[in-house]
């Protein structure tokens, strides 16, 4: 199977080299096959968001190389990256970040509008994807008028509408109750299984993590451990809890240079 994402010796140092510099990610490498559902776990401050932001091309790398869908993103200009994001990446944010001034339709159509697709194409595509996620009835409403679950499904539609090569999510269930969290993850897992959408998700929550096919544990900016789902989800969940308990016994600290 094709490799969708490849991170090679990635390092991220915040601040100027020298006194106040802080290395959040240190010489980290991993790769991701098309259709994988990878979760990134680790203690607070371990560098999960930093890693995801670099993959999302929102933050430049200090060192190393990231390749997505065959394109080396770490060497592109800002404008090229913007275009790349709008074509290849889908985002689900923690609080969904729907644009309150636009209707659900306009929100989910935005990634297609950005690619200057014809109105006909946009309409039929929105219709189709909205149907799959059951938001067809609320398509003319404003985000303010939606329930949490509806917002969440809208966010997923917006993230998938342009068929991105990679779907990125930073703690997508962070703001949800357990029921809505379960619905979201079920949806993601289903999309991953049925439509081969590749998903990279940062999460704190072991239950959310159990939906993934593979987990990367990060500690102090380095890859600490990897875990594959082999059995059922419940077994995977127990396994994750065990690993976390194991890791917790070690002190948590940043790395100073």
């Amino acid at each position, binding site marked *: 199977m094709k490799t969708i994402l490849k991170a090679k010796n990635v390092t991220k140092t915040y601040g100027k080299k020298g006194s106040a510099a802080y290395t959040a990610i240190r010489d980290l490498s991993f790769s991701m096959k098309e259709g994988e559902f990878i979760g990134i776990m680790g203690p607070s401050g371990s560098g999960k968001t930093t890693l995801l932001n670099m993959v999302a091309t929102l933050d430049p790398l200090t060192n190393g190389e990231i390749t997505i869908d065959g394109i080396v993103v770490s060497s592109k200009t*800002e404008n090229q990256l913007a275009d790349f994001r*709008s074509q290849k990446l889908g985002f689900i944010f923690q609080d969904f970040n729907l644009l309150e*001034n636009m209707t659900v339709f306009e929100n989910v159509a935005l990634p297609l509008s950005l690619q200057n697709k014809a109105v006909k194409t946009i309409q039929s595509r929105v219709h189709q994807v909205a149907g799959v996620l059951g938001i067809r009835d609320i398509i003319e409403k404003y985000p*303010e008028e939606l329930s949490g679950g509806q917002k969440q499904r809208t966010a997923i539609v917006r993230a998938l509408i342009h068929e991105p090569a990679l779907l990125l999510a930073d703690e997508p269930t962070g703001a949800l109750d357990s029921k809505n969290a379960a619905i979201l993850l079920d949806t993601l897992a289903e999309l991953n299984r049925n439509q081969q959408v590749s998903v990279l998700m940062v999460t704190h929550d072991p239950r959310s993590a159990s939906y993934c096919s593979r987990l990367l544990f990060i500690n102090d900016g380095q890859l600490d451990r990897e875990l594959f789902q082999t059995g059922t989800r419940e077994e995977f969940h127990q396994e994750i809890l065990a690993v976390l308990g194991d890791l917790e016994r070690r002190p948590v600290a940043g790395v100073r240079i």
Partner: protein
Amino acid sequence: MILKLAINGLKKKQRDYLILFTGLIISIAVFYMFLTMSLNKEFILQNSVINNIQVVFLVGTVMLSIITFFYLFYTNSFLLSLRKKEYGLYELIGAKKVQIRRVFQIETMVITAISLAIGLILGIILSRVVSWLLMNQLNIEFTQFKVVYLPAVFWTMVYFLVASFITSTVHNTLLAKSSIIDLLHSDMHNDGIPSEPKGSALQILLGIFFLGIGYTALYFMEQLRFIGLFTAPIATTLGTYVLFVALLPIIVRKWKRNKRVNFKGINSFTSGQLNFRLSSLKWVLATIALLIALSAGAIAGGFAFKNDAFTSIDEHWQYDATLYNPGAAEMAVLDSIPVEEQLTFRMKLNDEFIYLVREELNATPPLIRDMVTYEVVRPDPLPEELEIEDGSQIVSDQWFTALYAINPALEGTRSTRIVPLEEYELAEGEEISILLARTADFSAHIEEWQKLDELQLDVYPGLVTGFDPKTDSVATKYAQFKTQYAIASGTFFMGFFLGLAFLTMMASILMFKILSGANNDIRRYDSLRKLGVRRRVLENSLAREIFIVFLFPGILGLLHVFVGMRMFTFIMDEPYYRLWVSILIFLAIYGGYYFFTVHLYRKIVLPKH
């Protein structure tokens, strides 16, 4: 402790305060300048011409103080909204309401005091500049004029301190009424979804109807007079509000309906922003349209009025100079300018009569403006016999006017007798010659007219018994022009600075309104960036959005001015004189504020990485 916190908070919001300051400082400076111009006592006594200017500036001061009060009130409420959340936090950590209220009041007063210090300095400079310009224009010395005039300083300070004390007290009571929760959440409020417009077609019709009435009243002001004076402002104001409230949401909706455009790039975002913004700003925008009309109108009115001093003087005086017994000096001055027509008449003067020669009058009848037809004509020849009734000769109305044109200094002081030449030769009395001169352009030779008037001052004591050149004057075209021009120049500066002050205050209100929404937008622009919208595209969207917000009131305001200037036809000939200059000034200031707003907005929502 709380005070210290508050000062820190103030520092953090420097930018907002700076904008607030500019409007305030400009209005203080102009206020001071108006007061100095109108209150300088010694300056009043010295010259009657200046006396008239001072009334003009006093009117300006009153108008400015009314508008400024509203401005202060508005900015103070904006100030409060900026700080609400912070005050909520203070309260949360245990500050008493009384303390917070005191902090707010002190803050307001400090801001006013700082603005006063800067504004007064600017005002002094402004007074210096304006008085110098006026002196140059009117060709007189303001020897007694004090640029730093303490009564003006005093009243400016009193007005602004009292006004800001009142406004901050009002807002303080509002502050006292709001709960901690309200305060803490004050920056979270959302604009609210624009409601589906209902009956807007009717509203638009109503708005157009009112505007139509207002414009008609403005246009036919000359005929309608008082009715027009009342109808025009009321109907225009009403029409502006109704139209804005009904039309703005519809326009954006129409835009959004055009799917091909709306779903191109981030147009749907831009129009979504506008949809919310316009519907929350429609009242402010309508107010701004009216203020634009007022300020641009004030500037344009000043220009037109000044021009009118030239055009109207020609209406009443067909001859630019009327010289009694002109000597070599007068003739030398006349020789230096291109005189188009020059008439000479003789008259004999004794205690009882003024004698004029009929043949001379008939040979060269002077140009006059007919009081009935309002056309410039030469009177028909005088008949052989002129009746005498109650001791005065009866002449036609045209000749009646002509006699005053020929002899403005003496006509009416005794009986005039128009007599045949033989009779004139026999008449008793001192012979005086009168010379009327006319050029193609009165305004081109102002200096010469002034010189001639001065030369004639030596002649008048011989003509008019007890004439004192220091206190008395003779009606001449130049003398009348001088008075008229002084008032006009005063009005011009008054209108100009009043307009300038209005415009600055208005534009800074619009700027606040827009910028106060910026914090809500930070997250939106960040989301868009993450979704892969290029920075350039975001910048354009932002510039376009704010442009349209600025555009609507600009257009309607200018339309008001175009129609409204017509109103002045009943006091002047060319109300549209150099309207483009005022429009350019308006565009420069308004445009400046637009770019400044865009710049600040960009800095808030699109920080550099």
